[in-house]
């Protein structure tokens, strides 16, 4: 359902999974915004926790934690590590 093409996106992962970001399927503004926060292709992310239904996702990037809205997290394509 959340798969875009045949890739996996961040929201498909389970709590505790670690993955590498392959690409961000957003517009320029969003992609740049995320890159300014250190989230870009090649970055390792760990899903700490998801919330009920389609709530935001709490992730760990470079040793610190971020919360990303569901819509945004579903645009981040990843590969399970």
């Amino acid at each position, binding site marked *: 359902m959340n798969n875009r093409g045949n890739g996996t996106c961040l929201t498909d992962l389970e709590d505790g999974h670690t993955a590498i970001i392959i690409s961000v399927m957003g517009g320029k503004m969003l992609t740049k915004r995320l890159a300014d926060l250190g989230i870009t292709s090649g970055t390792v992310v760990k899903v700490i926790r998801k919330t*009920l239904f389609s*709530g935001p996702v709490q992730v760990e990037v470079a040793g610190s934690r971020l919360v990303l809205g569901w819509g945004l997290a579903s645009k981040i394509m990843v590969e399970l590590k």
Partner: protein
Amino acid sequence: MSDEKKINIVLAGQGNSGKSTVFNYLTGLHQHIGNWAGKTIEKREGTLFYKDYTIDVLDLPGIYSLTTYSEEEVISREHIIHQNPDCVINIIDSTNLERSLIFTLQLLELECPVILAVNMTDLAKKKGITINFKKLQGILNAPVVQTVASRGRGLTRIIDKVIELKGEKTGHKVHRYGKEIESCIRQLSELLKDFDLPYPVRWVAIKLLEKDNDISRFVRGMSPEALEKAGQLIENLEEIHGHDSAVVIADERSHTSSRITRETVKITSNRKLSINDRLDALTTQKSTGYLFMILILGGMFLSVFSFGNWLSGLLDSVFREWHAWWNLNLGTAFLSALGWSAVESVLALIQIAFPYILPFYVILYLLEDWGYIARISFLMDRLMHKMGIHGKGCISFIIGFGCNVPGCLSCRIMESKRERFITAVLVTLVPCSAVSVIVFGLVGKYVGIWWALGLYLFALAVIFIAGKISSRLLLGEPVELIMAMPDYKSPHLKTILYQTWDSLKEFVFIAAPIVIISGVVIQAINLAGWMPAISSFMSPVTVTWLGLPAITGILLIFGILRKELILVMLAAYLGTTSFSDVLTSQQMITLAIVSMFYIPCVATISVLWKEYGWKKAMAICVLEIGFAILLAGIVNRLLNFVF
């Protein structure tokens, strides 16, 4: 004073880096908080007197980047470039070096003197993070100072460094991009170098490649060739990388910062779960997170309201004595009564500010400093999204339950103008503590507590639907939540008190003028004896449509000043506090619903006016009056089936 002894410094950094703590420590009580010209963004300035130097400190907004994504970023960038501060102090969260350095790299590109204050080194140590400061200093070629701002450690060392560096030419190492990008920068710099640019040439070249709107517009007027060249280079870059050029550059910066972090940071992680992890799990997990949220917020409201009611009652009896004294010594003639209404407005403001808003802010900032507020945004994001805003908006609602004024002010944390406005409109519908007085004092006491709680649920449903409608009506994409999740840390009392004091001051300054003026005007109308005429003029609405006594027309006018006045005046006009003698249950519920929604009080209107302009403020008032009357009338008819 000679210029030699005057220094201008700027504090820059991301949110949660401890920037405000540093600012408060340095400037203490010599602070001035205003707004950036023409903007609703707070401008915090202060002065520090140190070793015969007068040091002006400016606290820039907490930002993650220096692009033109948000107003805060533009303001910060323009200030650093045009005001030429003697030094920019970049405050960095040492537990989060990698992300912080991305911002540092952008600062260094501006070629201004930068000192890095690597803050919260005590927390880093606890987390097993060791930073090689010497190496970091070497790589960036900028002074690095370790600080623990909450204890004031390292802060004088920063200032000593600032004084030491004053007037010296800085030679920070600007970080190099990959080969292709560097070649583009070189070609553009060549074209730009002969123009008299107010910005560093290399920085302009980078910004052109990033397609920065402001800079592109600026260069177009100066050197169209450079802009054209940039266009070609961008096309070329995008072909090689298959990405937007701005993203390519941001990516490289991000990779550079992770490389620097790898070279300077060693983490000896202790595998066992820390207290922070456990607490985080407990407060954000699906199973326990919501329960904790209800407990914490419930406890907060309960303690604020019980403290508030106690203190407010105490103040009330004191102020009543003052009123008696006033009447005794100055009489109750027109002018004297008018004078008292001005005094009374001020007293009323005090009666809200100290018993309710003060403890509310203390607890709120306590929760924020502890790290809990971000957890609420996380848990509530999904629900908030249905109203077209994201999780952070929930905080404004929570504040709004205490008082709509700080609730509306807090909407500034929303990123886009659209969301700021939607959140503010919804906050005006949140039943504040004054409305609670009516709901519980009238409906809760005489109709039943379940009816009162039902009215609260009803209000929440109205807010939810209003959110859905307004997010449809106001065009624009909803902004997604991106938020740093801070670690829990022990709250720092001084920071909390500073923040509370600032917010309380702001509340009084914004609210006072309009509250006093409108208080006097309405009292003048009353003393002139025009109220009966007004209430009979309003009777088609109040009596015919809403089924209320004609007197409520006057009450609703007084209620604009402060909503609890509706109840106070009701008692005064009817000469009794046992309301069940004069109002039926049905009338009480109808009156409570009108009071909840019919208009934001004057203090809230003045905030809306200040933040969004008078047109929008008036539009909200007119819309809400119409809506409340319509809604209460319908409910009144439906209640015919119940009572």
